[in-house]
């Protein structure tokens, strides 16, 4: 599903050149749950942005579903991202001015689905995330756990092939964090590929495989469980 070959990313300012990723070769199979770990500034977020088609690499190749997408124009990246990739962030990133329903509906609007279809899909996913009763509430009126459930609902409403989660439990207490991890696991079991950045060893236990990044390079990879184990 995801394959990077010698992926590099260099940030240039007027004075300094920082290499954020250095020849990263990562392979994520369809249906896999991969956790990326590493200290702050090791390039995790940069890697996520490139995988999520939010940014282009400086060098190397990036294959998404066997197609080279590393140098796509923003327009085409947007087209490819739509409906294929869902994002979950540490800080939830909900739009304050929109209520729960509208936040979740957002990706479907940009997919140009009909209102009736959208309604059906949003209601189904809210039901599933157990926040249907909060549909008319605004983000500020929800607890952190509820907000993250809304964010996950939004990430999966369009049935994407890939979910990218950037520290999804970072702002949550342990009980809500566990709930979120269970949800992600459940989605993965149903076939969604998940790549998750985390600091938490506990969370990384949910993944099939943990990739350790340091100074923009993959230093170790560790298989936690075979895919089949979870699929059982």
């Amino acid at each position, binding site marked *: 599903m995801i394959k990077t070959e010698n992926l590099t990313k260099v940030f240039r300012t007027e004075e300094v050149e920082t290499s954020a990723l250095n020849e990263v070769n990562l392979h994520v199979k369809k249906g896999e749950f991969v956790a990326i770990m590493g200290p702050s500034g090791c390039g995790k*977020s940069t890697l996520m*942005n490139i995988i*999520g088609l*939010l*940014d282009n690499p400086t060098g190397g190749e990036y294959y998404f579903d066997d197609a080279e997408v590393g140098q796509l124009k*923003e*327009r085409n990246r*947007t087209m490819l*991202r*739509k*409906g294929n990739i869902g*994002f979950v*962030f*540490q*800080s939830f*990133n*909900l*739009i*304050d*001015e929109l209520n729960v329903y509208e936040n979740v509906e*957002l*990706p479907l609007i*940009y*997919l140009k689905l009909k209102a009736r279809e959208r309604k059906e899909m949003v209601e189904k996913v809210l039901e599933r995330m157990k926040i249907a009763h909060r549909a008319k509430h605004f983000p*500020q009126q929800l607890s952190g756990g509820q907000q993250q459930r809304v964010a996950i609902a*939004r990430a999966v409403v369009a049935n994407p092939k890939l979910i990218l989660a950037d520290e999804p439990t970072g702002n949550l207490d342990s009980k809500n964090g566990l709930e979120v991890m269970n949800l992600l696991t459940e989605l993965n079991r149903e076939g969604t590929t998940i790549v998750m950045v985390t600091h938490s060893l506990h969370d990384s236990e949910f993944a099939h495989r943990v990739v350790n990044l340091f100074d923009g390079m993959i230093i170790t990879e560790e298989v936690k469980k075979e895919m089949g184990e979870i699929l059982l």
Partner: protein
Amino acid sequence: MKFIRTGNQRIIFRNLLRNKLHSAINIIGFAVGIAVFALIIRYVDHQFSFDSFHKQQSNIYKIHLGDSRSIPPASAQFLKDNIAAIDEVVRIDEWYGGGRKGYLKNGTETFRTSDLIFTDPNFFNFFDFKLLSGDKNTALTEPNSIILSERLAKKIFGNENPIGKQIEYLSDFPAKSYGFTVQGVIEDVPSNSSILYNGLISMSTIPYHKIRNGNISEDWVNWGFATFVKLPNSELAEQINAESPEFWTDFISERWQAEEGSARAADYKLTLVPLTEVHFASGAKRSSVYLIFFIGLFILAIAIINYINLSLAISTTRIKEIGIRKVIGSHKSTLFRQFLFESILITSISAILAVFLVYLIHPLLSGFTGFQTIVESDKIIKGLLVLIAGVILIGFLAGIYPAWFLTNLAPVKSLRNEIHRGKKGNTLKQILIVSQFVVSIFLLIAVIAISKQVNFIKNKELGFDKEHIIHLSGGSSIDKSYRAFRETLLKNPTIQNVARSNGTFAGNLNIGSKHKVNGEFRNYRATTIDPDFIETFGIELLEGRNFLWSNKNDENNTALVNECFVKKMELKNPVGSVVTFLDRDITIVGVIKDFHIYSLHNQIEPYMLCYLPWNSCINIKVSGMDMQNTIATIEGVWKEFSPNVPFEYQFLDKDFEALYRTEMEFSSLIKIFTLLAVFIACLGLFGLISFSAVQRKKEIGIRKINGAKVTEVLTTLNMEVVKWVGLAFLVSCPIAWYAMNLWLENFAYKTTLSWWIFALAGILALGIALLTVSWQSWRAATRNPVEALRYE
């Protein structure tokens, strides 16, 4: 107590510098607003100060009879004899409104002059015009006395003392020359005087030279005298205006057969117009002055709204500062003063800038009536005081709500930056923005509608050809050799026709006369022409014939009348009918098509063209090709035939444009002010959107991550502006429709308020607004969403 601590002042200046864009928008907006408002106040003050330099302004009244603003000269003494309360009366011979025109000759040189008026000896005791030299009690007593304005005296005599000097006056009509003695020099007429003059001639000159029979004390025929009276109080005037006194109703029924209560009596209705009202009773429109004043207020309001909106927007970034201040014990009132000081500081900086702007903008306006001077020297101190008071007031108005809003935040919430302005703040912001657009769209509609009317006027078929007609004044100087003059001119192929008339064709061709129909006098207007006139002007003859040079009997005895005349005088067979013109009988030889000789403010009136030898204006129809040479040719011929009178020419189409000077000025003024209003509104919109683009950075990022294309983000951002403009459009349309209809009522012939005027204004407003915000929206929409979310 110090208004504000030094430490706070530092913060205020730092804030100004930190939010450079917003400070600049506020300062520029206020500066333009204050500058425009100051100029408008000056204009309004000028309009309402007409004739106020007369100390007894409130006791002076001008006499109108019916619609006529000038009356027969005999009426003055008659009214004084019959109304005991009249202290004093003075007459000014306005010569049908234009003032006498002619040439003044100092022996060697000849100068064209206008606005020479005949007046009574008590002119200087009655009014407060300043006589600079000469004896105010005797200067106008003797016949052939003339008093010159300072400017005219300087022009004619240079630095010599003109008192006692002889001067020759060549009158246009009647074509005669008179010898006058200069008896004084008068201050140039102030710009806010409704009585205009370049020179005053003693009234006794009229009987001395037997001008118009000369017997002015018995003259009830020439309605050319503006007549003013002094009354001890306003009650009597109100009484007379309410009900005509008996002596007057008796008099007019005897003299003019205007029976009490008849429609005709209204034509002779005695009205005393206070001098304070004379300016607005003679063409100036109070409504236009008010409209301009309100536009000034609107412009200022738009600048104030910008300040409020931007302050509230920026406030979210200052919440922490406020929280800390409150936590460490700052009083609400101290903070309140700080914010108020800030707004007053901004308006003060703007005011200084505004003073420079006034000097910059002023030349643009100096061509408009009432904008000639910025401030008269004696009013500078007063002007400055008003400016300072105004600046403080504006700063206060702009600062009070933001100050109140910011100081009322709870300190803990402020510290946690937990303030969302909430629905209420947002609604206020939206109301303010929408009202800015309401004003802008209203002004745009007004500009388009006024321009449409002005164009309509300019291009309307007048019933004759006004293009390519050059007219020369002073034609009486070549009266005797006119035929030869005409023949010489016509030898030039670019000159197509030459004809004479009593006056110029745009406006002052009006001799008032009346004709009796079924025992009742009916008014009409007339002018005198020669037989070439109809053809020169392309006036259509419907019935009968034109005057004939060959028919000696035509002169003095025949007339052409328009369709309206035929209708009003109920003539079944107009050609051959005999009607009254002034004191004589005259035979109609032809009927001409109705045409406009006045501005389109007026309906076409019954009109007569008489063939009489009273013509001092020469009208020359040219082909329009090689204008420069044509004019040079005419000048050459003129000098040959009239070597002593300077050659002066004008274009008739320009004269017609001058008839609409008020409208064109008004139209241009509104255009300038609309441009400025829209500019200030756009400044505010730009600031607000730049701020909201920053505020919505996260939202835009989220939308993009969820699949929004750049165009979709642009739509989301611009949709808000479209909603504001749309709402404003709905509000301003009916207001503008009503206001413009009201304005169009000033015209007898008016354009239609087509739907496209409104549509165009709406599209313009939307276009300008979208242009203003699009750059910011584009920047926000194309930003990499990762940046927006990275530092969350």
